[in-house]
């Protein structure tokens, strides 16, 4: 038994050593997920507040009109594109969805007419595929006008509505991004890594040579899982620290739970890579199969956008993919501060997958 452990330990140690000497491997395992982190982090950095991209075309010279434009530009709800000055230009941009709507203030807007107070009507132009935004924008503008109207014509307002924050912390878009990207990194090192490496080792006859020694498949598997876990934890630690520093990620859960759960995740997902890479005779078998399995999983498991955006039936199905509990679990731990007991469903599902995946991996493994 002790000899067996020495075998596993030596293979794991030398595997890890080789990895840290290989710049290309480091790039794909550590730097590549970081690049994704920066791209998706930049996209999803915002607070999630609603805003509209609009052009304001002011054809009026009145002070009321000018004040309205100034206020709109200063406010947070409207992002005013100044480069657009005519309705035709605005229409062109709306066609390409660069603008949500165009607000046109006619020449007589804000002029004082017989009624002794200023009046006017502005028009919101929108393209049909932006109807919802346009309606929301119209009601926001209407509300502003109601306030302005009240200044000139006092009225009683029997019914009102006020908004009150629940004071609860809700998930920001980046919180979803982080868990998804950790899932993506685990797929990268757990599936794409071995799927590339094993067929190459077979091609060079390195595995066949190991087969002439008493080395057992399980010893080889355990050694690889160990070295890959160390590399994976390191890669995710770098992602985590970057997210905390650059993207203001708040770690709410326990670090121990986070590390243990991440290890379990790497173990399960790496099993998929071992099964495919261990089965495939060459790259031509390995690449299509791994793409077939991983790409749908990446999209369905909520890696790049949350699963609640999917239709109900798809959510039900994707719930049971091996990557889904990984991403859900990490989000629950990191951003919701859940403990081990709370993530038992995720842990349980991963445990079931571990049994299934490693059973298959052992059955289909070939040394050449």
């Amino acid at each position: 038994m002790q000899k067996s452990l020495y075998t596993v330990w030596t293979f794991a140690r030398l595997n890890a050593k080789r990895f840290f000497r290989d710049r290309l491997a480091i790039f794909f395992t550590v730097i590549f997920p970081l690049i994704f982190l920066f791209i998706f982090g930049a996209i999803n950095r915002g607070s999630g507040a609603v805003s509209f991209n609009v052009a304001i075309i002011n054809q009026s010279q009145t002070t009321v009109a000018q004040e309205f434009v100034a206020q709109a530009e200063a406010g947070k709800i409207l992002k005013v594109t100044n480069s657009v000055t005519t309705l035709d230009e605005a229409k062109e941009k709306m066609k390409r969805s660069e603008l949500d709507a165009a607000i046109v203030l006619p020449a007589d807007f804000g002029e004082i007419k017989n009624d002794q107070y200023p009046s006017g009507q502005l028009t919101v132009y929108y393209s049909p595929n932006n109807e919802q935004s346009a309606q929301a924008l119209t009601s926001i503008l209407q509300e502003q006008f109601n306030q302005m109207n009240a200044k000139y014509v006092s009225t009683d307002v029997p019914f009102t509505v006020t908004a009150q924050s629940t004071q609860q912390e809700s998930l920001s878009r980046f919180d979803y991004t982080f868990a998804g990207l950790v899932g993506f990194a685990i797929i990268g090192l757990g599936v794409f890594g071995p799927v590339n490496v094993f067929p190459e080792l077979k091609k060079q006859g390195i595995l066949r040579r190991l087969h002439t020694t008493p080395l057992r498949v399980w010893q080889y598997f355990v050694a690889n899982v160990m070295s890959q876990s160390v590399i994976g934890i390191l890669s995710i630690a770098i992602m985590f620290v970057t997210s905390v520093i650059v993207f203001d990620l708040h770690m709410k859960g326990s670090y121990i739970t986070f590390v243990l759960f991440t290890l379990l995740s790497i173990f399960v997902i790496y099993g998929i890579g071992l099964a495919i890479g261990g089965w495939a005779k060459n790259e031509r078998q390995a690449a299509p199969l791994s793409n077939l399995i991983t790409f749908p999983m990446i999209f369905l498991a909520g890696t790049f956008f949350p699963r609640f955006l999917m239709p109900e039936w798809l959510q039900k199905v994707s719930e049971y993919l091996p990557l889904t509990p990984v991403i859900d679990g990490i989000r629950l731990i990191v951003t919701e501060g859940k403990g081990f007991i709370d993530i038992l469903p995720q842990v349980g599902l991963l445990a079931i997958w571990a049994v299934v995946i490693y059973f298959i991996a052992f059955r289909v493994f070939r040394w050449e």
Partner: protein
Amino acid sequence: MSVIVKVKDLTKTYDDKTVVNGISFDVKKGEVFGILGPNGAGKTTTLEMIEAIRPIDSGSAHINGIDVAKQPQAVRYIIGVQPQSPAFQDKSKLKEILTMFAAAYGEKIDPKDLLQSVDLLEKADTYVENLSGGQRQRLSIAASLVHNPKVFFMDEPTTGLDPQARRNLWDLVKSIQAKGITVILTTHYLEEAEVLCDRVAIMDEGNIIALDTPKNLIKQLLARGFKKKHHVEQASLEDVFIDLTGKHLRD
């Protein structure tokens, strides 16, 4: 001398094509046994069946009394295998390769001693990808000997080596034999077989068509009335080459 490898009626068939056709032979303890034959004669397949990495269709092979088909794991502990074109994972140091191979047998070794025995001690901390062909062969031999096997298999060990490296490898094989290890090798080079092998089996199309010492085989041929067409030179072109370039290794 006692028999250490016993092969009986060994057969391998691929898609109705019989690659190894019921061959039988014994290898004596401590000898260097050569398997010669043209490409596709079934040499490598024969070796791989005896090495327990290819299933035996029918017949049997025993090494040191152990049935290869029934106890492949026990066989692996007592054999060393040198593949046709040895490859190692990049970014591995020579000493790490030997440590790893020893670990596969559950053994802890000092790689320095073994590296010394194949003249690679000064390369202990070099990455394998920086080795020449001959050095890689020697490392591979060292890797096959980490566990002191009883039988050492070499598949075309000198293919692709320059004359200096080939001669160096011959010396190495002789020193392995001197340690009491039985060597079974395949080769295309008949001169090599003549220098190294105590006995040779000549294979063609899956059958052994001759088996004896190189001397006896030549005697038998001459007895059949064979005469060379040309006058035999006292030296060959290879002798000229070695005389001019020297015997020392170039890598």
